[in-house]
C-alpha cells in the first residue's frame, strides 16, 4: 500500500497521472468515478491516436494517387500512350524506380523506423568489430605517443540522437550559466534593469539563423588555428544564445518581485547582502527561474534542429537535411520518423524539467 502511494505521488508529480488510472484498471479497484477517468484519460486518447493514424493513412493515399496520376499524365503527354502504360504498370508493381514521391503512409514510416534500427545494429556491430581489430594497434600507437585510430564510419540514426542531445545539453548549460547570474544581477537593481531592457527586448526575438551566423563569424576566427570541433561549438553556443532569454527574463522578474514580507524578514534578521540573495531572494524566485529554464530547454530543442541543419553539425537536424537531399525512396518516411523522435524527446525533456520544477517549488504548480 505504501509503495502504491509513492507510485501515485511520483506519477502525479511528473504529470503522468493517467498511469494511476491504468494501474487501477488492472488491479480491479475501479469505481464509477474511476471508470469515467479511465474513459477520459485512456480510451479517448487512444481512440484519437487511431483516428489520427487513420486520417494520415487516407490523406497519404490520396496524395499518392494524385501524384501517380500526374506521373502517368506526364508520360502520356511527353512520350505517348505506350510510355503511360509502362508507367502505370511500373507504379502498380511497386518498383522503387518510379514510385510517386509524396507524403509517406503510416506503414511506410513504421518500416523506415525498423530499417533505421536495423541500420543502427549493423553500425554498432561494425564499430565493435573495428574496435577489436584496432585494439592491438591502438595500444601500440598510444604507447608510442600517437593518437589512436578512431572509427570514422557513418553515424547511425541513434548516434545522431545522442549527438543532438549532447549539443542541446551543452547549449542549455551555457544558457543557464549565462542567464541565471545575469538575471539575478539585473533583477536586483532597478536602474540596471531599465538600462539593459532595450537590449533584451531587441535580442530576444532574433531568429536562430541570425544567432548562428553571428556565432559563426566569431567562432570561425577564434578557432582558426586549433583543430577542435568547431561545428559542435558553433551549434551549441547558438542554441544557448537563442534559448537563454526566457531564463534571463524570468530570473530577473522573479528576483525583482520577491514578496515584500520576505525582504522585511531579511531586514529584521539583518542578513548581509550575500546571505540575503542566497537565503531569501534566490529560494523565493526559484519557481520562476525553473519555469524559465523549462521554456529555455524546449526552445533549445526546437532551434537545435534548425541550427544543426544550417551549421552542418552532426545530429538529427543534419540527418533530416541529408535525407531530404538524398531523395531515396524511403527518405520521406525517415524524415517523418525523425519528426516523431524529435517530438517525443522534446516531450520527455519537458517532463523531466517539470519534475525538477515541482521538486524545487514550495507552492506546487501542476503541469500543462
Amino acid at each position, binding site marked *: 500500500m505504501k509503495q502504491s502511494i509513492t507510485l501515485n505521488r511520483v506519477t502525479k508529480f511528473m504529470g503522468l497521472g493517467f498511469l494511476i488510472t491504468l494501474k487501477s484498471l488492472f488491479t480491479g479497484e475501479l469505481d464509477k468515478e474511476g471508470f469515467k477517468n479511465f474513459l477520459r484519460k485512456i480510451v479517448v486518447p487512444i481512440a484519437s491516436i487511431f483516428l489520427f493514424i487513420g486520417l494520415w493513412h487516407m490523406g497519404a493515399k490520396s496524395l499518392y494517387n494524385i501524384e501517380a496520376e500526374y506521373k502517368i499524365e506526364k508520360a502520356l503527354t511527353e512520350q505517348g500512350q505506350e510510355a503511360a502504360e509502362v508507367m502505370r504498370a511500373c507504379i502498380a508493381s511497386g518498383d522503387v524506380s518510379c514510385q510517386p514521391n509524396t507524403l509517406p503512409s503510416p506503414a511506410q514510416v513504421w518500416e523506415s523506423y525498423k530499417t533505421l534500427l536495423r541500420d543502427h545494429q549493423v553500425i554498432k556491430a561494425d564499430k565493435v568489430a573495428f574496435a577489436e581489430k584496432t585494439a592491438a594497434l591502438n595500444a601500440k600507437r598510444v604507447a608510442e605517443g600517437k593518437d589512436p585510430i578512431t572509427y570514422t564510419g557513418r553515424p547511425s540514426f541513434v548516434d545522431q540522437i545522442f549527438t543532438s542531445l549532447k549539443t542541446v545539453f551543452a547549449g542549455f548549460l551555457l544558457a543557464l550559466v549565462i542567464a541565471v547570474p545575469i538575471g539575478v544581477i539585473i533583477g536586483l537593481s532597478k536602474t540596471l534593469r531599465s538600462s539593459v531592457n532595450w537590449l533584451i527586448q531587441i535580442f530576444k526575438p532574433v531568429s536562430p539563423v541570425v544567432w548562428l551566423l553571428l556565432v559563426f563569424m566569431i567562432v570561425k576566427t577564434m578557432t582558426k588555428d586549433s583543430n577542435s570541433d568547431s561545428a559542435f561549438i558553433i551549434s551549441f553556443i547558438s542554441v544557448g544564445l537563442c534559448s537563454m532569454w526566457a531564463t534571463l527574463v524570468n530570473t530577473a522578474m522573479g528576483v525583482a518581485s520577491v514578496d515584500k*514580507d*520576505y525582504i*522585511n*524578514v531579511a*531586514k*529584521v*534578521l*539583518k*542578513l548581509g547582502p550575500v546571505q540575503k540573495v542566497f*537565503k*531569501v531572494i534566490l*529560494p*523565493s524566485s*526559484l519557481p520562476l527561474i525553473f519555469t524559465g529554464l523549462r521554456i529555455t530547454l524546449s526552445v533549445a530543442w526546437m532551434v537545435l534542429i534548425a541550427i544543426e541543419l544550417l551549421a552542418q553539425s552532426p545530429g538529427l537536424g543534419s540527418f533530416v537535411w541529408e535525407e531530404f537531399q538524398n531523395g531515396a525512396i524511403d527518405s520521406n518516411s525517415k524524415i517523418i520518423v525523425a519528426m516523431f523522435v524529435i517530438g517525443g524527446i522534446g516531450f520527455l525533456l519537458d517532463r523531466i524539467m517539470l519534475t525538477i520544477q515541482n521538486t524545487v517549488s*514550495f*507552492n506546487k504548480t501542476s503541469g500543462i
Partner: protein
Amino acid sequence: MAYLELNNVYKTYGQGNHATNVLSNINLSIEEGEFVAIVGFTGSGKTTLVNLINGLLEPTKGEILFKGEPVVGTSHERGVIFQNYSLLPWLTVGQNVYMAVKEAFPKKSKRELHDIVAEYVEMVSLTPAINKRPKELSGGMRQRVAVARALAMKPEMIIMDEPLGALDALTRGNLQDEILKIWGKEKRTALLITNDVDEGIYMADRIIPLRPGPKATLGPEFKIDIERPRDKTELNDNANFKETRNAIIEYLMDIGNERKSEAQEVFELPDVTPKSFVGRF
C-alpha cells in the same frame, strides 16, 4: 529619558496628489521593562506605527529614539512578530527559527543554536511539526512559529503586531501567558498591537488607543492597575478590570461614531445628473 520615544512623528505614504497621511503627530514614550498595548481599528495605521519603531520605515517628520539614539534601520535589539507571519515558505519550522537564531547569535556553536531552536519550538508546542513547511501548517500554527522565531532571538524589546489574531481562544491564552512569562523573566520591554481590548488589559501595563486615520493620532492612555501575575478567570470579577474595560470600549465606540458622522459629512453626494459611462470602459 525614556527607553523608546516618539516625538511628533508623522508618516505619509506616496507624494503629491497620491499622498496618504497615515500617522499624524504621534507622541509615545515607553519605559524600560514596561508592557504597552496599542489598540485600534483595522486600517488605522497600527502596522505602519510598528514598522516605524522597528526601523523598516522612516518617519516623514519627527524623531524616534531608542535608548536615546535615533532609530536607523532594523536592529536585533528590537524583535518583531509580523502580523502576517512572514515565514519563509521554503524552510521548515525549525529552519525558519534557526535562521533567525543564527543571525542573532553568530558566535554560538551549531549545537547551542539547535538547542535554542528546540527550546522555543517546544515553547509554542510545535515540536511535532518542527520538520514541516509553513504551507502544511494551520494559520494559528504559523503564527506560533513567528512568535517562536522572534522570541528565540532574545531581543531586548519585543514588538508584536497583532501576533495572536489568527489563534483560537485556547492557544491564544497559552501564548499570552508564554509571552508574559518571557517578558517577566528577563525584564524585557514589550509593545503589543492588538484589536482585542481584553487581551490588552490582561497583558499590558498601559493601553493606548490609536484613533483611526487618515492622520491617526494616539488617544489618552489607560493605566491598568491590576497586580501580576493576573488570573484570567478572576479578572472578570475584578472591579478595576470592568471599569477600565468599559472606559476603553466606550472611548473606542465614541471615536467609531465620530468617524461615522464625519464620513457622512465628507461623502455627501453632489446633486448632478449621472453621465453616461457607456463606451468609456
